[in-house]
């Protein structure tokens, strides 16, 4: 059976970006279809730790070669922070948004200086925060280990339950008229005059605007329209403990090492920080690296010694749709009118912002934040843009 259906917008990718965008578009009574090769929030959006990073991100993941431009991201982070409050208000389901506040710790003088520098940038961007001496930090969080010399507290940091928020946005979008097609795979994409034609395993669909929010598969899908970019996806791993009574009221990060620790609403402690799994197996399970596990957990015990006696329940890995320059991607694809993409770094934190921004770009309005430098053009091969819209199969 071949399905034929027209809609205004087709979204490829049922992760958090697809779900939040579907919600924004259907709210404006735009006819939207969303296609995913498996199920809602199954890949990176389900595997993520779910942190909301509002204070400047300074740290590199272990193995990350290039540092991201953390100053550039600050206006986007504060904008996203506000939109998360709106999302919580708008969605009827509890997405477990918790503004725990976040502590970034330093263990040496040099690291301390980096915190002070970072704080200056945040003040310029209007992000609230406070520098804490080691004594002040320990008064706030007595669990901190002896090695902590300086810390910064930001009240806006927190987390959202990733297993709740993506399905919640998706369900709300469905109530607003979204057509959701899961377990369907895009086979090829072509353009006839101003219409995009998306051929899948189960049918063929046309639209005037096409959005690709397929995380680490973005380059695969873009290659179907002749756009060649290179994503640098990595598989990173997370660790989760047994449930504990409330003990860690903050998201704790490290200024110089990949580390994030928090206690989620179910009581478990989630420990991550972007440590790599053994390898990336896209679409399958990437095997956990024992070295990353011991490295990540050792560091966690150094900063929060009580974790020593806590039982580890499970670990898992998930693909992160990173780019070579470790920055976000958002915008219309140059040379391919009506084709939009979003992804890259901190897609989870930026999800509500990217949804609003894409909505504005699709409706040819001026977005609330300037994203002109975050387009995909910077990652495209020179020849790629020329062939945009041509389809090799049709």
């Amino acid at each position, binding site marked *: 059976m071949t399905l034929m259906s027209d809609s205004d917008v087709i979204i490829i990718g049922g992760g958090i970006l697809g779900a939040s965008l579907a919600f924004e578009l259907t709210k404006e009574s735009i006819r939207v279809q969303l296609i995913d090769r498996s199920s809602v929030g199954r890949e990176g959006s389900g595997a993520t730790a779910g942190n909301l990073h509002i204070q400047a991100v300074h740290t590199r993941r272990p193995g990350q070669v290039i540092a991201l431009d953390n100053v550039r991201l600050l206006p986007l982070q504060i904008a996203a922070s506000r939109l998360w409050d709106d999302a919580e208000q708008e969605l009827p389901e509890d997405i477990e948004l918790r503004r725990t506040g976040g502590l970034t710790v330093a263990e040496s003088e040099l690291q301390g200086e980096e915190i002070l520098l970072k704080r200056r940038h945040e003040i310029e961007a209007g992000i609230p925060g406070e520098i804490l001496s080691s004594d002040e930090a320990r008064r706030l969080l007595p669990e901190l280990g002896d090695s902590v010399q300086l810390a910064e507290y930001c009240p806006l940091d927190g987390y959202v339950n990733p297993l709740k928020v993506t399905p919640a946005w998706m369900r709300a979008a469905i109530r607003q008229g979204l057509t959701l097609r899961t377990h369907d795979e895009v086979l090829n994409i072509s353009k006839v005059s101003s219409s995009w034609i998306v051929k899948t395993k189960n049918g063929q669909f046309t639209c005037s605007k096409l959005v690709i929010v397929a995380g680490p598969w973005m380059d695969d899908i873009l290659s179907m329209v002749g756009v060649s970019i290179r994503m640098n996806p990595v598989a990173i791993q997370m660790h989760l403990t047994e449930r504990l009574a409330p003990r860690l009221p903050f998201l704790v990060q490290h200024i110089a090492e990949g580390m994030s620790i928090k206690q989620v609403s179910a009581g478990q402690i989630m420990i991550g920080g972007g440590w790599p799994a*053994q390898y990336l197996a896209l679409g399958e399970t990437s*095997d*956990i690296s*024992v070295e990353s596990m011991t490295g990540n957990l050792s560091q966690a*015990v150094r900063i929060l010694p009580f974790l020593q006696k806590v*039982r580890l*329940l499970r670990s898992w890995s998930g693909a992160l749709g990173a780019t070579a320059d470790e920055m976000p991607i958002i915008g219309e694809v140059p040379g391919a009118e009506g084709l939009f993409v979003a992804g890259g770094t901190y897609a989870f934190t930026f999800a509500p912002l990217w949804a609003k921004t894409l909505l504005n770009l699709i409706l040819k309005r001026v977005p609330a934040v300037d994203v002109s430098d975050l387009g995909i053009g910077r990652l495209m091969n020179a020849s790629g843009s020329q062939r945009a819209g041509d389809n090799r199969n049709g």
Partner: protein
Amino acid sequence: MASESRLRGRYSEMKATNHVVIVGGGPAGLAAAETLARSGVLVTIIDENPDLGGQYYRRRTKGTTDQLGDYRIDGTHLINSVKKLGCTVLTDSYVWGISNDKHSLLVENSLVGKSSRVSFDYLIVASGGHEIHYPFSNWQSTKVMTPGMLSRLVTIDAIEPIGRRAILVGSGPFLLAVASHLIDSGVAVDGVFEVTRPYRVTKFSIFALFFPGKCLLFLHYRFKLLKNGVKLAQGSRLRSVQDSGDGIIATFDNKSGGESVLVESQLLGVGYGFRPNSELLEALNVTREEPTIFGHFYPKVDRFGRTSQANVFAVGEVSGIEGFKSAIFGGVLSGERILRDIKGSQGLKSALITWVHQLRSIYEEAFAKFLKKLYQFDLEDFPNLDSGVLLCRCEGIYASELDGVLSQSESDMAYVKSETRIGMGLCQGRMCGTALNILVKKKCPKFVSSGFSVRMPFRPVTIGSVIELESVGTRDDIDV
């Protein structure tokens, strides 16, 4: 430094002698260990219990032994032989993970709460199985346990009195064996309720024809039940248990319809056969057989227990062949196969042993397959759950929470898990995964379910213990 080089020397020496690590000290693991150690191979056995023996050869405590004598003395001989042959025995130790290169096991000693790496050249997974659970109303009652536990209480532990009366529910010949154990120890059996319909004359004539010895054992059990007036019901599904005074009332329905049946008793043993403790094999990515109706993972193995991964063997219950005799034959065969590998050739005696054990294991395996067919499940053997049935004990999730989740067309295990938290608790879905697999299959028949995927640690382990592994070196490769 001196000690380090000495240790390194010891390690390379071990490499040269081919270190075989056996996970599980039950009949299969013990038989493999004895076969190998007798020929001078360096063997380490890892077992989570305080002593070797597994489920079948579980040791009595010293007090009980002094009072009642030894239990299953052939097990005692086997254990003593393995110890005398110089095998390294790591008890109270469980394997919770596998190194990146898949050549070292990550093992925690639960007494000291520390982990270490145990590297192997050959690995024999003989980790056994545990009883299959399917929930019903009020299964969490303290008067409900597995048949295996009931049997253990009256035989190995010989705790008296556990109660005056009991009923046995579920499936498989094991229920008959346990009924017999209970009767022998003075517990009245108020009925054996088999959910499938294996006990038919047509089926049993095949039984008697091909497996006369086994059939005699069955008849022995059957006559014992008859003599003691024990009812043997077939096609009965357990729906609920109510506590009543110091006893229980169990409610059964029949899958082909008819009135519900109420049975009064004191204790209830319920189990649907055994499932493999397959986490390690899954983590090693060995090729699996088609998932069972429960989604359980069985490795594809040859006659010697060889899996798809080089030098990794699976024998005994975990390989899907039930029965302690098969386990022993499987253990011997895997051991002989490794010996042939190491030595490059096989002596006459060894070849003869291999040949005889192959023949016997073919017979045992044929019988195991016959039993699987005899007690074949279908989805209707497992009723849909009433809303008040506890499904996931670790996370406290009731069947009602599946409403609206299971009705969706795309409800696979991962989806249900993330929507409901079923399987996210301490046991990582070991208990509830089986039932959920059935429920998902009932709702979406086309869906191919393969259970929850395995994740490290296979069982909870303290973070302090995990980070012990960071001190990588030769020292922690093995603690001989």
